[in-house]
């Protein structure tokens, strides 16, 4: 069972993303702002967060920085959802090791591909992690 957290202040977009991702064995959580996203991430330890950059209150990048700083949540994969003119802000994201960006509006096929890749990479990391702990 995988868990994906969708953090975006736009409810209809969250619904759209949920419909896009829906699959057996996938649990989907919603957060409507940055604070909610950080709280849910700490409580539920999702495998992946789709994180909107521009949210009222705490922005996506701030949430990412906070989660990366805590050992419990540092490993969570993050895909940033960005507006059109945030190219230079990516530097901040790159510093956090966030490799995946999806510009809004996004192509649903691209979204699916991004999510699939992120979850597969996460799987690999988890297995390696387990092996290291065992070995």
């Amino acid at each position, binding site marked *: 069972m995988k868990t994906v957290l969708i953090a975006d202040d736009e409810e*209809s*977009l969250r619904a*759209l993303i949920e419909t896009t991702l829906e699959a057996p064995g996938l649990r989907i959580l919603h957060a409507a702002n940055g604070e909610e996203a950080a709280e849910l991430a700490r409580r539920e330890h999702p495998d992946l967060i789709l994180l909107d950059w521009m949210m009222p209150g705490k922005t996506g990048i701030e949430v990412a920085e906070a989660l990366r700083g805590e050992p419990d949540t540092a490993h969570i994969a993050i895909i940033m959802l960005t507006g059109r003119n945030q190219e230079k802000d990516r530097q901040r994201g790159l510093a956090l090791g966030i490799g995946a960006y999806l510009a809004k*509006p*996004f*192509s649903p*096929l691209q979204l699916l591909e991004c999510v699939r890749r992120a979850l597969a990479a996460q799987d690999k990391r988890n297995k390696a992690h387990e092996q290291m702990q065992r070995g």
Partner: protein
Amino acid sequence: MSRCNGAETHSAARPRIPDMRPQLELYARDLKRVLAEEEERTRQLEMANRQLQAYAQDLKSALYAERQQSRELKHSYHETVLRLLAVTRYRDHETGEHVVRIAHYARRLALATGWSAPDAELLFEAAPMHDVGKIGVPDAIIHKPGPLTSEEWTLLKRHTEIGAEVLSGSRSPLVELARQIALTHHERWDGTGYPHGLKGLEIPLAGRVVMLVDQYDALCAHRPYKPALSHAEACRVMLEGDGRTLPQHFDPLLLSAFREIHSDFDNIHARHADQVGLFVLPAKVPPAKVPVEVQQPRSAGASETH
């Protein structure tokens, strides 16, 4: 904080279509692309399907033609064998029923001694050719009513080797088996047979089988020098001997199998009793003239000898 509830509800429920529009357009675009790809894949699958069906059809008709051909080949093969037999019967004045009985006896005895059904079937088809070599023996010897001189006897014995020569060098298992039978169906288990005086297991099994059933049929047949024996008498001669025919002539295992199933021999003999003058040809070779032509030498031969 005295916000109007109605206003808030209204603002929350207000659809934000302008914001979603570019996103939904992308969904529509992707959906179209996926549909187009799906259609293309379906088209390709349908084409592959049609292609496979065409192949299957081709294979089916090829297989059908092949089967038809093999049936025809088998049939004409069979017919050739039967015509060959017709030639020897024509010479030999044997009735057609003799070779039919030999085929049935041989198959019955083979099955009783554990032959597989296909092998027994091959024997069934090969056994009737055991006397084809008589084509090379002079009429005067074959039709001589009295005892043969030793020279005549030597010539008559040659029919085994002549038959083997006629049937030699074939790649067909049937003809090869027939060759073996033609050569060895007068060999005896105790080594007193001909042409080579083979003994015991030196004699091929098919030869031993046909030798036994040919003996039985000869005992039951009328000859100018002897009457026809009844089934019971023939059995007694084979199992106990009469001075000419001796039990040690036969493979003991075959003889004991014969003892077990002898009543089947009686039945076969009854079912395929000689019908004087009736010349049996393969079903697909029906010219009405043939029986008439065959009658002539028969009556001519009879008038010469009597």
